[in-house]
């Protein structure tokens, strides 16, 4: 545990040094500015979508960029000859992606509170953002480990957005019919959006919430255990 905390602190320090965390916060500050020009109702409607974009696409993008930078540095090899387990290294990376999602959520939630006096179910939002951050961080990590460079990762990310994110945005704006809601839950991004919207609106459907949580947790476990872990090891061997 102590080792994992040390690794996490190192991850967070590097997220700042590699300008990943500052970029995430700057994006959140853009939302802050946007809320100044929106009414309370408009802000309430769009807030889940903005938090969703920050904790899904932005997390995938930033975690992917961060891992590509580390791969360029060749530091995976060095990490693997430290007296720490690969499990601890990956746990720290997963926790760092949670922090990344959480930091922008805090800025967005604070903006909504101070500008429009909007209050959410913060405890639920906190938990759901952690889950969204860790699962989408895993997706970002997976994309980074399976692409040669950042440009090719962006290509894969665009494909991911078209397949998994765009339908959710269309659904939010009523362009996709409500009957597709359950089908769209196959998309991890849609499951994440469902959780975030529930916490923001305070309207919970226990079955849907449980299914979304189970799906995101399961996906995170499967990605880390069967895709990221072996690929991360191979990257370490290649140097």
């Amino acid at each position, binding site marked *: 545990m102590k*080792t994992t905390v*040390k690794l996490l602190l*190192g991850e967070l*320090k*590097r997220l700042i*040094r*590699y300008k990943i965390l500052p970029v995430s916060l700057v994006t959140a500050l853009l939302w802050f500015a946007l809320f100044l020009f929106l009414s309370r109702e408009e802000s309430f409607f769009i807030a889940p979508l903005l938090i969703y974009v920050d904790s899904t696409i932005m997390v995938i993008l930033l975690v992917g960029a961060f891992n590509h*930078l*580390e791969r*360029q*540095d*060749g*530091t995976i*090899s*060095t990490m*693997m*000859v*430290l*007296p*720490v*387990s690969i499990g601890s290294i990956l746990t720290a990376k997963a926790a760092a992606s949670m922090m990344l999602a959480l930091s922008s959520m805090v800025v967005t939630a604070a903006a909504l509170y101070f500008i429009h006096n909007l209050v959410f179910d913060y405890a639920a939002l906190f938990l759901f953002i952690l889950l969204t951050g860790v699962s989408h961080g895993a997706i970002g990590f997976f994309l980074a480990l399976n692409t040669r460079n950042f440009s090719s990762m962006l290509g894969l990310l665009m494909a991911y957005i078209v397949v998994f994110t765009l339908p959710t945005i269309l659904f939010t704006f009523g362009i996709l019919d409500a009957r597709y809601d359950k089908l769209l839950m196959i998309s991890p991004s849609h499951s994440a959006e469902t959780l975030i919207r529930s916490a923001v609106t305070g309207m919970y459907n226990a079955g849907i919430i449980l299914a979304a949580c189970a799906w995101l947790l399961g996906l995170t476990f499967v990605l880390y255990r069967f895709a990221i872990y072996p690929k991360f*090891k191979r990257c*370490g*061997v290649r*140097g």
Partner: protein
Amino acid sequence: MSTAFSVEDLHFTYPSSKTETIKGISFTVQEGEIFGLLGPSGAGKSTTQKILIKLLENYSGRILYFGKDIHSLGSSFYEEIGVGFEMPVHFTKMTAAENLNFFSNFYQNKADVQGLMERVGLWEYRDIRVGEYSKGMKVRLNFVRAMLNRPRVLFLDEVTNGLDPKNARIIKDMIVEYRSQGGTVFLTTHLMNDVEQLCNRVAFCVDGRLHEISTPRELKMKYGKREIKVEYREKENTRSAVFPMASIGENEAFLNLLKSKEIETIHSGETSMEDIFITVTGVGVK
């Protein structure tokens, strides 16, 4: 002295390959020695090192580390070894000091970082980002990184590659010092100069197999020519003569030459490690 590593009939095939990269090699590395694994690119020396440091698994054969099967060793194994990779491997957007503090944080045994950095001439540059370091500085930092935990066994891959002669000398002196304090070194290199100056024993690795394993001196005795070459001045020209080393003190022609001519150089027919490599393996050192 005990045996640091004992490797028996080691075979390894990369998952993406149909042919074996390591084809049944056996050797030992004694505690307190510098063991050099030499060979051309793609010979299997880096693969062997990666297996010994547990980065590569799924090999067949037996590897013992101080009598224990390395399969049974957990991540604590890395408390005892130091690894200097060929390519510099540091966080480039962090300073050298931040890098070393981060890595050092995970070890129970901690070396004197300031002392090490001063020795390699990096202490005054400790607060500069590694990305701004020259190649030579990165190589020196790599060496310090490998020494951070005062390792029992040190793995070094092309440790002086990219260093100027002065800094290469400093690193080599530190390696010899480390050995004299009981440390064990597993060195993979293609630089024969390093081998001659550092290694107690060497093994030649070609196409996944080990050829000769011996000391540099024994190899030179075995493959060198037992003769003496003399260069001397005669009528404004430099001439040379070769004499057999056997009974050289009774060789009249040799003694007369020494007495009667202006001698310029005298060399024994000692062969270089590179020549030995070519002879032993049949390929050039790349």
